[in-house]
C-alpha cells in the first residue's frame, strides 16, 4: 500500500509542478522589468555591455525557448545560475533553506505544543476558565497581523527587557560544524549547550510570531475535534469499561481527535512556508522567503522559478506526510 501511495503522490506532483512552472514562467514573462537594468542601476554601461549581460543570462532568447531550456534543465536538477549571485540557483537556495526549515519546524512544534494540550483541556473543561482563555487567545491569534506583532515583540523583549536578541540566527562565538544545518539541532549534536541556548534565544521570537496564528487555528480545531470525539460512543464505552480517565483522554480520545489537527497542520504549514517572508524580514532571519521576495523584486527569474517549484514539492510532500500520519492515527483510512 505504502509504495503505491508514494507513487500516487508523485504522479500527482507532475501536473502540479508543471502547472506551477507554467504559471511562474508566464507571470515572470509578463511582468515588466529587466534584470540587467536592475543590476546596472545607477551605473554607467555601454549598450555592448548590456547586450553581453543579457546574453550571459540567456535573456536574448525568445520566451518559449527559455521555458523549454528551463524545463529540460530542471529535469536534470539544473536550475541555472542566479542572475545576481552569479552562482548556481541550487546552491543559493540550499544555503538559505535550512534556516527556513528550522524556523518553520520550530513554529510548527511550538504551535502543536501550545494547541494540542490547550485544545484538549479546553474541550474537557468546556466553558471553564481555560476554555474561555483559549477562546480569547485564539481569537487574538487569528486577528493579529503578524508583521505588527513581530515588531511589538522586538520592542518588548529585545529593546525594553533585553532578554532576547533582535535578529539573526546564531551568535558569533558559536561556530558549529554543520550536520543538519539546523542550528539548534547541530549545536546539541556537537555537544555545545551554550550554542544551543544561543540558537534557541534567536529562534524564540520569530518562531512565536509565526506560530501564533497557526496555534490559534489549531487550538480551535483540536478543541472541536476533541469535543466531537468525547461525544462519541466509543468514549462512553471506554468509560463503561472502568479504565482511568487519563487513559481515556490521552489514548482513546486524543488519538482520534488528532486526525483533523494533523490535516489542518499540514495545510497551515504549507502556507507557513510560503508566508514566512514577512517574519523573516522583520527578524532578519536568513531564510528562503526573504530571498525569494528580494528575487522577485529584482527579477531574478531562475531563483524564483526554482524556489516556487521547491515550495510546490514541499506542499505535496507535506500532505503526503500528513496522510501517512493520518493512517497511523486512524487505521480506517488507507492510502
Amino acid at each position, binding site marked *: 500500500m505504502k509504495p503505491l501511495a508514494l507513487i500516487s503522490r508523485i504522479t500527482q506532483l507532475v501536473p502540479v509542478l508543471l502547472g506551477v512552472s507554467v504559471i511562474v514562467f508566464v507571470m515572470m514573462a509578463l511582468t515588466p522589468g529587466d534584470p540587467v537594468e536592475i543590476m546596472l542601476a545607477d551605473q554607467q554601461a555601454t549598450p555592448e555591455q548590456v547586450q553581453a549581460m543579457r546574453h550571459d543570462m540567456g535573456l536574448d532568447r525568445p520566451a518559449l525557448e527559455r521555458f523549454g531550456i528551463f524545463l529540460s534543465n530542471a529535469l536534470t536538477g539544473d536550475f541555472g545560475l542566479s542572475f545576481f549571485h552569479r*552562482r548556481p540557483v541550487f546552491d543559493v537556495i540550499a544555503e538559505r533553506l535550512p534556516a527556513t526549515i528550522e524556523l518553520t519546524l520550530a513554529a510548527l512544534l511550538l504551535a502543536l505544543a501550545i494547541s494540542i494540550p490547550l485544545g484538549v483541556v479546553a474541550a474537557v473543561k468546556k466553558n471553564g476558565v481555560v476554555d474561555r482563555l483559549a477562546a480569547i487567545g485564539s481569537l487574538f491569534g487569528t486577528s493579529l497581523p503578524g508583521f505588527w506583532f513581530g515588531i511589538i515583540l522586538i520592542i518588548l523583549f529585545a529593546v525594553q527587557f533585553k532578554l532576547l536578541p533582535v535578529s539573526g540566527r546564531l551568535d558569533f562565538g558559536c561556530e558549529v560544524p554543520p550536520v543538519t544545518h539546523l542550528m539548534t539541532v547541530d549545536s546539541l549534536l556537537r555537544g555545545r549547550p551554550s550554542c544551543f541556548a544561543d540558537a534557541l534565544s534567536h529562534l524564540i521570537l520569530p518562531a512565536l510570531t509565526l506560530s501564533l496564528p497557526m496555534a490559534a487555528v489549531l487550538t480551535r480545531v483540536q478543541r472541536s475535534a476533541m469535543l466531537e470525539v468525547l461525544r462519541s460512543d466509543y468514549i462512553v464505552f471506554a468509560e463503561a469499561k472502568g479504565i482511568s480517565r487519563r487513559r481515556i483522554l490521552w489514548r482513546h480520545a486524543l488519538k482520534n481527535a488528532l486526525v483533523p489537527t494533523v490535516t489542518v497542520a499540514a495545510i497551515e504549514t504549507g502556507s507557513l512556508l510560503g508566508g514566512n517572508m514577512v517574519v523573516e524580514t522583520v527578524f532578519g532571519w536568513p531564510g528562503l522567503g526573504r530571498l525569494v521576495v528580494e528575487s522577485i523584486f529584482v527579477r531574478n527569474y531562475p531563483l524564483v522559478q526554482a524556489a516556487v517549484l521547491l515550495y510546490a514539492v514541499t506542499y505535496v510532500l507535506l500532505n503526503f506526510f500528513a496522510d501517512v500520519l493520518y493512517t497511523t492515527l486512524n487505521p480506517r483510512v488507507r492510502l
Partner: protein
Amino acid sequence: SELRVGFTLDAMTLDPANHRKRETETIIRNIYDGLLTRDAKMKVVPELAESWTQVDPQTYDFKVRQGVTFHDGTPMTADDIVFTFERLTKDDAMGGQTSPRKDLVGPIKEIKKIDDRTVRFSLSEPWPILPAMLPVQEVVSKAFTEKVGSQGLATQTNGTGPFKLVEWRKGDSIILQRYDAYYGGATEIPPVGKACVDRVIFRVIPENASRVAALLAGEVDIINELPPYDMKKVETNSNTKVMKVNGTRTFFVALNNTKKPFDDPRVRQAANMAINKALIIDKVLLGTAVPLNGVMSPDAFGYNPDLPAYPFDADKAKKLLAEAGYPNGVDATIDTEGAFKEITEAVASMLTKAGIRTKVNVGEGSTLRAKWAPKSDKSGDMYFTSWGNGSLDPADIFVPTLRTGDRGNSAYYSNKEVDVLLDAANVEVDQAKRADLYKRAQAIVNKDAPWIFLWLPQDLYGVSKRVSGWEPSADSRINLHDACVK
C-alpha cells in the same frame, strides 16, 4: 575586540569582479584592497599602487606596492594585478562569463606588466575618470583564482585587505577577522597598520525598525541607513550617536518632457516653484539633506555652485501655468516606489496646491524603471526617483540621466547643447576645462528644468559610542580598517 555592523543587505557574492551591487562592494572592500582608494573626503589616493602617473590621455602607469601579501601568505605581484584587470575586461574571462563590471573600468585596450614594479593600462580612447573608478575594483590572487576557479571565488576569498573571511552565514552575517600581516593600507590615510579590531561582523538586518532596535539593544555597533526619524532616538540613547555624511544620491522628480503638460518648460518651472523644499527637508528629512538646483552633489567634481534656485512660490507657479495655457491647472500622476511613498505624497500635495493636481501612483521599483526607460512608450507624467553617484563624477550621473536617450534619462530630456558639452567633457583630459564644461551644462539644465530638482540626502549612521576612529564616507562605503572599539 569585536565590531558589529548592522547592514541592510547581504553580499551577493564575494567575488570582486562578479557583481554590480554597492552593498556587496562595501563588504568585499574590507577583505580586498584595490589599486587606489578614497579617503573620507572622497579624494582618490593610492592603495595597492604606490603611485600612478598619466603618461598620456590614453595611458596610465601604476607603481606596484612591495611587500603586500594575500591572506594565504603569498606575495602580491604585478602579475596578480594584470590578471585581475584582464579578468574584469576580457570577454568570457570568468569561467565563460563576462564580468558585469567590465564597463566600470572604461575602454581598456590592454594591461601590461612593464616590470615587476610597474603595470601599464592602455585605453582605446581618453577616459579621464579612470582613477576615480579604480577604487571600486579589487585585486585578486591569480594563483588562488586559478586554484578555486571563478565559481569558487564567489564564496572563498584571498584578498589583501585588512580583514580575512572567517565564515559567511548566507543571509545572516559575514564574519571577518583581522589579517595580522596586513601591509597597512593607503599611506595617505592614517593610521597605517593592521586593523584595530580583532573581528568584524556584518549582520544583515533588512528591516529598518529591527536594525535600529539592534543598535539600541547593543547588538550591533554601527548601522547604515538610519531613518531620519530615528535620529532622535539614537541621539537620546546614552550609548549611541548619529553620524552623518553628505550622500551621493540625487533625488528628483523626472517630468515627461515629451508629453503634455510637461513638454512646456514653463509648466516644469512652475512645478519647481510649487515645492517647498525647505519645509520638507526640515520636517520630513529633519534637516538631513541639502537642497539641489541641479543634478550634482556639492561635493562632486565640477559642481556649479551658482545655479539659481527656484523659489517656493505657489502663486507664481499658477501664473506660469496660466501662461502655458492651463489657467485651470492640470491633472497629473506621479509615480513612485513604496519606499518613497510618504515623501512623494508630501510633494504631490504641494503640487496640488499650486494647480498641478497630482495623484500618487505607488509602483514596484523594477516595473516603474521599465515604464520610465528611455525606450518605453513614454506614457508617464512624473516620476519620483533618484540616481546615485558613488564616484562623485558627473560622468556617472549627469551623462546617464540627462544626455539624449541615455540609460537613465527618464525625463526623456533632449538638448543638443547639453549633449555636445557632455560628450566633450567625457574625453577632456584637462580637469579644469572638463569641470567648466560640466558647469555650463548644469546651467542649461537648471534653466530647462527637465526635473523638479529636489535634494541630496545625507547618509545617516547610527553608531555606538564604543566605536572610535571610524568615519562615514560619502560613497556609502563602510571602511573598518581604522575603526576601534572600547
